[in-house]
Structure formats: structure tokens, C-alpha cells
């Protein structure tokens, strides 16, 4: 269980760590008691606080045993700083945190691996670095080897390993940690995907089965969604949202879109706004099991001269999924301000983030083109993703499986 109260961390701007000697001396000077006139001192204080950058600002939360907490936010939002403070790598500037139980942090896999040592030796060393005792590693050793799939090479120096084997062994050790509290950074971003998923599954399994408390940082919203019971959204060091995953992810997208903005034109034939909505005209940023999702293009048309509107929906690997053009089914796009609407079959999309790219053009001219007209997230319900795997297909086949008796002979 974890209690965090008013945790803040500030860094100094500029050349970090390199306090000038002059500053150092003036500090000592002040401490000894040889103050300059008070006014000057205050000004200096002001300058100093101006140079501070708050990586984390007054974050408080309580986590009960067995909860899996996801941390989301943009780069630099303070996720890693929070994790580093909780794993005692650095100290907070203000506030405090109390952690009850054994803590292990996994900010990287294979920390402390030495290329000249064998897989076996590295397993013991890495285990010890992560906080296991020798006996614990010995007890788990066979399991680790089996999980890592490096079997016959366990007594070979790891510098002869392929990068895949190296990462697998490192993961396997980490996956067999048995702390009460586990802090995981975006470590799952390396290694081959199949093995990542295996580890993710293992982490989920451990926490569900044995009541571990886990804090998990990831940019992969679908694994956050499938693993976590609660999500904290951080932005510029502040805690924005502490809620269930769906709501937090939705909020995250609202903020992301607001910040990124769409490169919209202000005159001529143009897109004004592009968004998803459900059948009640409620806008959506997160699609999660809605039956009918509509894609809306609010446009301004000045000349209708064979004007066409086309778009493509891309997934997060930049593979196009859907493309369509307005004139495929319309005769013309009339002049004026209006909304073009079409249903988007989002039920076939696997979990992930998607963006909409599109253009307005006629045979003579491209009027408006943007590769980021809109973005949305999908959380899909299917048996694969619930276990943390990603389907290999680009789209899900929503079909009715039937069962048919086979008569032999």
C-alpha cells in the first residue's frame, strides 16, 4: 500500500548540476551570516525561484494493496519523475510518500548486465540488483530459464546472445520478482512484441493472483486499459485526473487534441472541424463499444466545381485502414457551410489510437489538406486483447462463429 502526500520535485533550469563556484561561495557567505542588504537578497531569491522547473507539483494519492495503477501523460508530464521518487532513485523536493512492503522498480530491463558474464551469472547479479536475494534467484532459476527460452545458452556469456535472447533473459528475471509493490516504467517498449505480451500477461497474472500493488507507466493505452484498475493522468507535473481507465484516457485525449490542434485554414474552401460522434450526437474521443459511430466533416465550400472530399483513417503504426470519398456516393458537394457525415465501422478496429487524414480538392486545385484532421482512440472488446495480446490482423473480423456437427464416414 502506498500513501503519497504533496509530492513535488523541482529541477533548476540551465546547466543542471553545475552550480557556479561564485554562487556556491555566495551561498556559503549567506549561511555564515554575512548578508548583503535585505532588498538585494530578496531579489536574488526571486531569481532563484524563477529558475526552478517543477517536474512534479503537489501530487497526492493513496493506493490500496492489490491495485494496479496506470500513469499516463505526455512526455515530460512527470510520470518518470514520480516513479523515480517512489523507487528511491532520487528524493522529492517537497512532500512525502510512504510505501509499505517490499518495493521493486523496473525502469529498465537488464540493468547491470555484464557482457562477459554468462546468462546464469547475470541472472543472479541482475536479480540482486533488483532486490532479490541469492536464495530467491536460486529457487526461481529454472522458471526463469524456461520463461526466457534461452535454455542451452544459459552458461554462455551474454555478449554472444542475440539481442532478442538478451532482452528475453532480462525480462524473465524481472517477471519473476516477487515484491509487494512493483513499479514499472515503459520497459515493455523494447524486445519482440510476442515476448512483450507474454511479460505483460505475466505481470497482470501476478497482480491479480497474489494481490500485488503495481504502478505502471506506459504510452500504450490499450495495455493500460487492459491491465489497470485505476489511472492517474499527469500534465506538466500536476495530477489532472484520478479515475477509472476509460475516463482518464478520454481526458488525456481531450487534452492532447486541444494542445496539438489541427492546422485549420481560416478562408477558402476548407475543413472547419472533424470529429466523431455517437448516434445521439455526443462527441467521442474514445470509442468503446458504441454501436454506431459517425464521422463528421464540418466544411465550408465556396465553389462546388466537382469538389471532392476524401479521407483515410490510419492506425498508430501508420497503416491506412479506411479510405473513402464523398463523390463515391454523392453527386456533388453543395456550396455553403455544412456537415458531411458518414458511419465509421469502428467495431472492426482493434484497440489503439487512430488519426484521420483528409483533403478537399477539385480537378484543378487542392483546397485544403491535413494529415491530422482528427484523432480518436479505440478500446475494443475481444478475447485476445483482454489478455493483453494484440491481434495480428489490421481489423477484427466480427463474425458469428457457428458450430456444425460432422458426420464421419
Amino acid at each position, binding site marked *: 500500500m502506498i500513501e503519497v502526500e504533496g509530492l513535488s520535485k523541482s529541477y533548476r533550469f540551465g546547466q543542471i548540476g553545475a552550480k557556479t563556484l561564485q554562487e556556491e561561495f555566495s551561498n556559503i557567505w549567506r549561511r555564515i551570516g554575512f548578508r548583503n542588504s535585505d532588498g538585494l537578497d530578496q531579489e536574488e531569491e526571486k531569481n532563484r525561484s524563477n529558475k526552478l522547473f517543477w517536474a512534479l507539483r503537489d501530487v497526492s494519492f493513496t493506493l490500496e494493496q492489490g491495485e494496479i495503477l496506470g500513469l499516463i501523460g505526455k512526455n515530460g508530464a512527470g510520470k518518470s519523475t514520480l516513479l523515480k521518487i517512489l523507487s528511491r532513485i532520487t528524493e522529492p523536493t517537497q512532500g512525502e510518500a510512504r510505501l509499505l512492503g*517490499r518495493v521493486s522498480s523496473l525502469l529498465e530491463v537488464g540493468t547491470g548486465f555484464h557482457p562477459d558474464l554468462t546468462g546464469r551469472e547475470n541472472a543472479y547479479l541482475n536479480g540482486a540488483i*533488483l532486490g532479490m536475494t541469492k536464495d530467491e534467484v536460486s529457487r526461481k532459476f529454472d522458471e526463469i530459464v524456461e520463461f526466457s527460452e534461452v535454455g542451452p545458452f544459459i552458461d554462455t556469456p551474454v555478449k554472444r546472445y542475440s539481442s532478442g535472447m538478451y532482452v528475453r533473459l532480462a525480462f524473465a528475471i524481472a517477471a519473476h520478482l516477487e515484491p509487494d509493490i512493483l513499479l514499472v516504467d515503459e520497459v515493455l517498449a523494447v524486445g519482440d512484441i510476442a515476448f512483450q505480451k507474454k511479460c505483460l500477461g505475466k505481470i497482470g497474472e501476478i497482480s491479480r493472483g497474489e494481490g500485488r500493488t503495481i504502478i505502471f507507466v506506459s504510452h500504450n493505452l490499450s495495455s493500460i486499459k487492459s491491465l489497470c484498475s485505476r489511472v492517474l493522468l499527469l500534465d506538466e507535473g500536476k495530477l489532472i485526473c484520478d479515475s477509472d481507465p476509460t475516463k482518464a484516457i478520454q481526458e488525456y485525449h481531450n487534452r492532447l487534441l486541444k494542445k496539438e490542434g489541427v492546422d485549420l485554414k481560416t478562408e477558402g474552401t476548407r475543413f472547419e472541424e472533424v470529429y466523431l460522434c455517437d448516434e445521439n450526437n455526443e462527441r467521442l474521443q474514445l470509442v468503446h463499444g458504441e454501436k454506431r459511430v459517425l464521422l463528421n466533416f464540418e466544411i465550408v465550400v465556396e465553389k462546388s466545381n466537382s469538389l471532392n472530399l476524401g479521407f483515410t483513417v490510419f492506425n498508430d503504426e501508420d497503416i491506412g485502414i479506411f479510405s473513402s470519398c464523398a463523390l463515391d456516393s454523392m453527386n456533388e458537394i453543395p456550396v455553403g457551410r455544412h456537415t458531411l457525415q458518414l458511419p465509421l465501422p469502428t467495431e472492426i478496429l482493434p484497440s489503439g489510437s487512430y488519426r484521420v487524414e483528409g483533403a478537399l480538392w477539385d480537378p484543378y486545385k487542392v483546397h485544403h489538406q491535413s494529415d491530422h484532421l482528427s484523432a480518436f482512440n479505440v478500446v475494443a472488446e475481444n478475447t485476445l486483447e483482454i489478455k493483453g495480446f494484440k491481434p495480428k490482423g489490421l481489423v477484427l473480423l466480427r463474425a458469428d462463429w457457428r458450430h456444425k456437427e460432422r458426420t464421419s464416414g
Partner: protein
Amino acid sequence: MAPKSRTKTRISWFCQEEANDQGRQHDQGSLLTDKMETSTQCYVIKANRNWLRFDWREIWRYRDLLFLLVRRDFVSKYKQTILGPLWFVIQPIIMTLVFTLVFNRLANLPTDNVPPMLFYFCGLLAWNYFSQSFVGIGSTFTGHAHLFSKVYFPRMIIPLSYLLSGLITFTIQLVCFAIIYVYLKIFSGSGNTFGITIGVLLFPLVFLQLSFLSIGVGLWFTSLTAKYRDLVHVLQFLTQVWLYATPVIYPISKIPASWHWLVSFNPMVSIVESFRIMLLGAGTLNAQIILPSIVVTLTVLTTGILIFNRVQRTFIDTV
């Protein structure tokens, strides 16, 4: 005020340290929290904690890591080398030969009437242990920045692992020294000019002082390099200068007695000289040299631990 008192009560069952902060007036309570400490670990992460606190029990909990690091150091150094651990003894032997040739034969520096081989080797025993530990410990922060930025363990483990590695090297070199000693005692004509003295009973104490000094100086050095990177370049250079300021290649008897007060502030002087007196029965020592050496050593050790403890808390922010 109300919310604050609520958290206080909540903390007191939660953690021992907070209970202590509230005052130790209730003894029964602290007994209970002591028990809790042993059954489950509890950490309080706090800003500006008292930097005089030092958790030795935690180092004990991480003892496996300590030994594995020593092993890594040992194995990685000699894997894929043809001569392997022989390098432990080749280095001091060659140094001894060079010293004998240059300083004894060419420069005609006296060796207190002891065979030069033994004279230099004996000095190098102490010196190598010191310089190896010093250079290792002195690079604790700069050499492990990546590790420190990724995982927590008591940072003091790293300096201790260097000290233990040094101990292994020292033991091997001591055995080598013993072999040369026995050989010269039996086969050379000068066998009666040297011999172990009863003072060797104090050897563990002198060795302890040597270890304290190595770790103290190393901790100071690495704490300073964490902030002022320039000092990295000073390390190698400093050990060389220090070698010449220490009677490894010359006997202390060559230093005029009126200067003894000055050299006594270099604790290595009394340590190296003690080694020779204990193992070879040759050398000059008096309280005037020994006492300042002990005082300096203990001061460097305690201040070194304190400053290291202070720096390690936020070192990673400056990387």
C-alpha cells in the same frame, strides 16, 4: 490544522520513523513498531531528510548484491585474458623490479638494509591496496551513473565492493610476498637482515586503518566529482603524486626528523612504514607520526561517509 493531525495518526501505525519523530515518550509503542519493521519493510520517502541518518541494516540486507558485484569485478577483469588471475601478481612484481633497478641501482636510494625486492614489494602491498580501492571508490558516481539512475540499492554497496575486491588482490599479493620472503630468507646471504617482528600482531589494526583511509578518501573524492567533473582528471594524477609523497620507494629514515610532523599528516606514511616494521623489522616510527595519521584517517572516514550520504540522495538529478 485538522487534516494534518489526521494524517499524523495514520502515519504512526504506518511507520516507525514517523513514530520516532513524534517523540519517544511511549516506549511500548516503539517496541511494537520495531516488530513491524522486521516483519514488513516500510519506506518513508521524504524531502530533506536528516542526512546524518545512515541505515547499516539495509546494507546487510543487500549483502548478496555486494558479493555478486565483487565476483563480477573479479570475473570480468580476467575473462578472456591468457594469464588470468596471474595479473594480480605480475603487476607488483614488475613494479618491484623496476623500482629496484631505477631507484636502488641507479639512484642509489637506501632500503634500510633490507633486500630491495622485499623493501619495495612490502611498500607496494599497502600502496596497491590503497590506490586500487581509492581509484575504484573514487569513480563510484561517475562510473555507475547509469545504474544509479535506473534502480535503487544502498549506494554504499559500490564502494564496499571495491574494498572487497581490493582485499582479494591484497591477499593474493600477500601470498606472493610470503613466497619471495621465504625464498630470500633461505637462499640469499642477506637472510639475517630482515624478519617478521612481534608487531605483526597489530597487523589487523593497521590493515583496518588502511581500509578506513581508502574508503574515506574515495568517498570524498567521488562525492566531489559528482559535482565538479574536472576532478575526474585529477584522480590518476593525484594517486601518482601521492605515491611519491609516501615512503614506498624510499625509507622514512631519508626524511629529516624536523619534517616528520609534516609528513605525518599523510596517513599512508605511518601505514607503509608499519607494514615494513611488522613484516621486515626495518623502519622508523614514533608516536609523533602515528597519532596524527590515526586522527586524520578517522576524520576523513566519518566526513567521507557523511558527504557521500548527502550527495547520493540527489546525485541522479545532476547527471
